[in-house]
């Protein structure tokens, strides 16, 4: 009899997840292919319309560019502070800050950037007073470029956190062996370091891509849903700001989930390859 309680808790958790996570997802899939007269592919096919293609393209472009910048900048920062010669205090300062910044997303981040780079932002005004008018040069915070600048604020720290274990896994012996054989640092990176790191870098890129791809709050706060992204389009359907059927929202959501499943599958494959070097 005493075994009932443990199984009750296990069952409760699984049932909770099934009811409030799996069932809604299945509901989306069902809704996306159900029209007034039953089964239909109309709503999924409607994703090929111009405005949704724009949303897909914007979302993918924003995610890919901010992830790429994140991987490069975050990787370089992590590499710099992980050098054996770097002071310990610097290392822990960067790690702590990354933990904070990676979790400082959403609306507060958006308004922080409005205060900085918005049309009345302090940096914008400051640059204007010395003759550099960003907004007349075509920059605006409320565009894909602007959003990319904002997204990097959580992408780069996220990268620092994700890549640190992989960088620490590069063995000193490999580097010493290269030096003994007369390799320059550039040769070491080109022939040993980067090839070993490549799968980790790839899987980090994928995860950063996913984090930007599913972000809604930052983009909404900055553009009020006027810039077409997948997340804001779904949000617009849900809040009734546009004349579209709930099925369209469901179809868009299914589209996002398909992209995310693909992304996570690629990442899992890459991590598997990365783990070859770390027994």
């Amino acid at each position, binding site marked *: 009899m005493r075994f009932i309680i443990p199984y009750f808790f296990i069952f409760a958790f699984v049932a909770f997840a099934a009811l409030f996570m799996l069932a809604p997802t299945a*509901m989306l899939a069902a*809704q996306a292919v159900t029209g007034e007269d039953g089964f239909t592919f109309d709503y999924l096919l409607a994703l090929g319309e111009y405005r949704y293609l724009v949303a897909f393209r914007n979302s993918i472009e924003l995610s890919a560019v901010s992830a790429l910048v994140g991987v490069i900048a975050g990787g370089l920062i992590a590499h710099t*502070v992980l050098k054996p010669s770097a002071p310990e205090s610097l290392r822990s300062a960067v790690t702590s800050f990354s933990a904070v910044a990676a979790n400082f997303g959403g*609306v*507060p981040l958006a308004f922080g950037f409005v205060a900085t780079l918005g049309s009345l932002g302090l940096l914008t005004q400051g640059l204007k007073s010395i003759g550099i008018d960003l907004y007349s040069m075509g920059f605006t915070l409320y565009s894909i470029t602007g959003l990319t600048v904002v997204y990097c*604020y959580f992408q780069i720290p996220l990268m620092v956190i994700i890549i640190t274990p992989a960088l620490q896994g590069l063995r000193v012996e490999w580097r010493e062996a290269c030096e003994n054989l007369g390799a320059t640092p550039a040769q070491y990176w080109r022939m040993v370091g980067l090839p070993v790191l490549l799968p980790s870098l790839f899987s980090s890129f994928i995860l950063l891509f996913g984090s930007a791809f599913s972000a809604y709050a930052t983009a*909404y706060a900055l553009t009020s849903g006027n810039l077409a992204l997948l997340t804001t389009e779904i949000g617009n359907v849900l809040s009734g700001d546009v004349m579209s059927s709930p099925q369209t929202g469901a179809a868009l959501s299914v589209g996002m989930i398909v992209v995310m499943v693909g992304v996570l599958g690629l990442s899992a494959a890459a991590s598997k390859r990365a783990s070859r070097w770390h027994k």
Partner: protein
Amino acid sequence: MKRLGVGGWIILALAAVYFIGPLVLTVIFSLWEGRGHYGISAYVTLLQRPNIVRSLVVSVELALATCAALVVLLVPAMVFMNLYAPRLRPLFEFIAALPFVVPAIALVAGLSALFSGPEWLIGTPFYLVIPYFFLALPYAYRAIDVGIRAIDLTTLTEAGQSLGADMGQIIRLIVLPNLRTALVGSTLLTLAVVMGEFTFANVLLFHTFAVLINEVGQNAPTEAAALSTLSFLITWLAMAGVLLAGRRGGVQLSGAR
């Protein structure tokens, strides 16, 4: 200090400008009163807003309720799964990975499609605890999993049993104290995530702290900057707690898997 190299210093300097710049400018902006005057009037106006305290309280309540749900629903399930049904581990891993695959905005679409009642469930802000549970699940699962793997759960349980303790005593006196680091870490992380959460609250029309920031920000930028500053401080405090609690790397941040 000397051996970072010129390249290293340039990288760090650029990073410092990009990361610290907006923070400093946001604080200065929040103190701006127009025409070259600076002061705390934005903060004073904020405090006089009728909704601010209410929305902050709602967010704090939601954060605490989500933490409670994690402790009541997730922790026992994970402990018992490890003890009695380790074959269910892949299922648990799958559930914990789901929130990554299904973005928040898609989950909220699914929830609103599936549930249009009952009123006692979807009519109160505490409905948000359900999506927030899944929002925090990946982080919390990882942290607790690391915590459980670090202690030898089976041996500890058997030792307790052979000394005559019942299951409740074992959980209360042995398992939970050993998981304290993991629990504190995931609780604080959940706190930070829920305090800043906007997607679910906005779509489901509940007035939380982040929704208020957005509302204020659309017409009062300096007050929004003040709220952003406060919000950054909250995140900072929660993270400082996580780092102090999890010195041994018990907490993994931001879905690194």
